[in-house]
């Protein structure tokens, strides 16, 4: 089961003040009705209590179901025909300052990312490639092309000084990478995200789901160690915070795994042979599977189930109120 807009579920908390208001209204109503009822006060107020309770209960349920419909639940899968051949790969490369950090074996994260990209380009001789770099912003630097000379030369010159915007906005990076796939191309599409996952902003999971539902898996490669490393600046000194403490940059493989999971891709750690082998197996496996099967599975949105309940409970809340309680009133 998937929830496309999990934040919407926070709105369910608004049902508590709504219920409180309904109770406030009940007290007013009971008071007002009591003034009119005269001798039959007890009977009338009993019926009122029952009617008020069910009417308010169903109304609250109707709002709750509408909120659930809004949250975008989906479960189950159906197949969509997709007869594509060939492969387009777009790299989304994190070029934020934390990618300068050197972990363990003293290789900078950005260098590891470069090596991984070079390896992928080399191992997929018929694919087309595009490159998007991102930090606090995202920029399409190489449009999807067959020109391997241009791709290779850009990769080898790639550093953390390409973008000045500070921060790591994985959402923008993924969105820009997804938008970089050219329209009208009859090829399978793969997004390779290379980052340490640190200090992420935005909601990358939503972007990953959008890509996934369009049949574009994200293969996420995390660089850097969870224990953290220092960041060396261009003058050789170490990056410090405002109080002069040396900044430790820690990789966050968790968010990268979630992104891969949300898009139907896979995640890997580091640029080691094992991780790279796994990554290439996944990419090739994906391409072969698509070409063989000619379809892909998409999850089925289920907002209707909740909407139907919303309509039914809303109707009940009106019916309880409108229809007379024969024999009592």
């Amino acid at each position: 089961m998937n929830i496309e807009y999990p934040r919407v579920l926070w709105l369910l908390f608004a049902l508590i003040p709504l219920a409180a208001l309904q109770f406030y209204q009940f007290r007013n109503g009971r008071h007002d009705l009591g003034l009119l009822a005269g001798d039959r006060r007890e009977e009338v107020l009993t019926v009122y209590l029952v009617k008020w309770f069910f009417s308010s209960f169903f109304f609250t349920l109707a709002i709750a179901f509408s909120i659930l419909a809004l949250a975008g639940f989906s479960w189950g899968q159906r197949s969509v025909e997709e007869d594509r051949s060939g492969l387009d790969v777009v790299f989304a490369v994190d070029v934020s300052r934390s990618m300068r950090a050197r972990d363990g074996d003293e290789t900078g994260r950005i260098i590891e990312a470069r090596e991984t990209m070079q390896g992928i380009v080399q191992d997929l001789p018929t694919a087309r490639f595009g490159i998007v770099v991102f930090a606090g912003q995202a920029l399409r630097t190489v449009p999807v092309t067959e020109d391997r000379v241009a791709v290779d030369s850009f990769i080898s010159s790639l550093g953390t000084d390409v973008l000045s915007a500070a921060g790591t906005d994985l959402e923008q990076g993924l969105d820009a990478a997804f938008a970089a796939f050219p329209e009208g191309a009859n090829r399978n599409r793969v997004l390779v995200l290379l980052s340490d996952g640190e200090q992420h902003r935005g909601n990358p999971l939503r972007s990953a789901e959008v890509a996934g539902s369009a049949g574009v898996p994200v293969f996420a490669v995390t660089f850097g160690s969870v224990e953290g490393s220092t960041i060396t600046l261009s003058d050789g000194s170490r990056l410090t915070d405002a109080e002069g403490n040396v900044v430790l940059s820690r990789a966050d493989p968790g968010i990268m795994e979630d992104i891969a999971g949300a898009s139907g891709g896979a995640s890997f750690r580091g640029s080691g042979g094992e991780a790279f082998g796994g990554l290439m197996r996944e990419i090739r496996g994906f391409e072969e599977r698509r070409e063989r099967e000619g379809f892909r599975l998409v999850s089925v949105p289920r907002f209707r189930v909740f909407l139907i309940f919303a309509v039914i409970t809303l109707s009940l809340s009106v019916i309880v109120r409108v229809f007379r309680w024969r024999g009592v009133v």
Partner: protein
Amino acid sequence: MVFESPGYLFLLLLIPVGVYFRHFSPQRGGKLPFAYRVWNARGFVPSFFARRAVFALATISFWSAVVALVLALGGPADVTRERVFLNRGIDMMIVLDESPSMAAEDFAPVNRFESARDTIRRFVEGRENDPVGLVSFGAEAALRVPPTTDYVKLGDALEGLRIMELGDGTAIGMGIALGALHLRSSDAPEKVMILLTDGENNAGEVPPETAARVATEIGIRIYTIGIGSETEAPIEFTDPQTGQVYRGTFEGGFDEAILREIAELSGGAYFYAGTSGTLESVFEAIDSIETTEKRVRIEVNTEPRHRLLIIFAIGALLLDFFIRKLLLREVL
């Protein structure tokens, strides 16, 4: 805009029934306005119209919420149709002269360079599925965009070109060589280069003939376009490095013999464009020569649009609740 499950829209037919039972049925229970507070010296004047108007607003918002929920059930969606090309297009590389002489103002409305840029932009807009790349040259040559069908990126790069950015000179050979290098890894059956220049080769290590021979070996057809009038023309441009403005007159031409030779060698064609109008028709001619049969599949993508309706419905229901229960103090 379409509805994915239009069957649900039949529920709209039930709404008049609901309206009847709630507002008009004799058994609906009556409406009895009454004062819930003791009169306190201010004259008991119910503002009849205002109350009716507010009540009507509540009723309208309730029923429009119901309509919105039913419409949302129908699954409204925007449909986009994407043309997916099943065969390969022609790979093209545009090699454009960026030397200072391109600022000569003998091409309406601005100068040679702006005319060339406009014409190329329109040419690219007319292509579909053909990867187009851009190389510019002055004393040096540089790849601006590798061949791509991402025409937006190409347009941006075209927009970013500045006269004399690559130095004062005309390295035609370097331009052709660089263009050929970047078309080399393409496995397109047809590869085309379009060279625009207004000067003689006077810079770079590679002579144009040699570069053209290399390109021909890779299977690239080169269309050469010589531009510029044969008379003296005023010239004005800004050096992008120093910001200094240069003004004067310019007279000089391109080497027609070389351009012809390059075109013939590679199986392309040579064109002369003396005005911006002829430049436009030259590109139209190339456009019509270099076409391939296109096999297309239409891919239909739907983007669900039910969320706005649900948000509206929730808002309208709450408005109805606040008006009737809290403002008008309806008992039930």
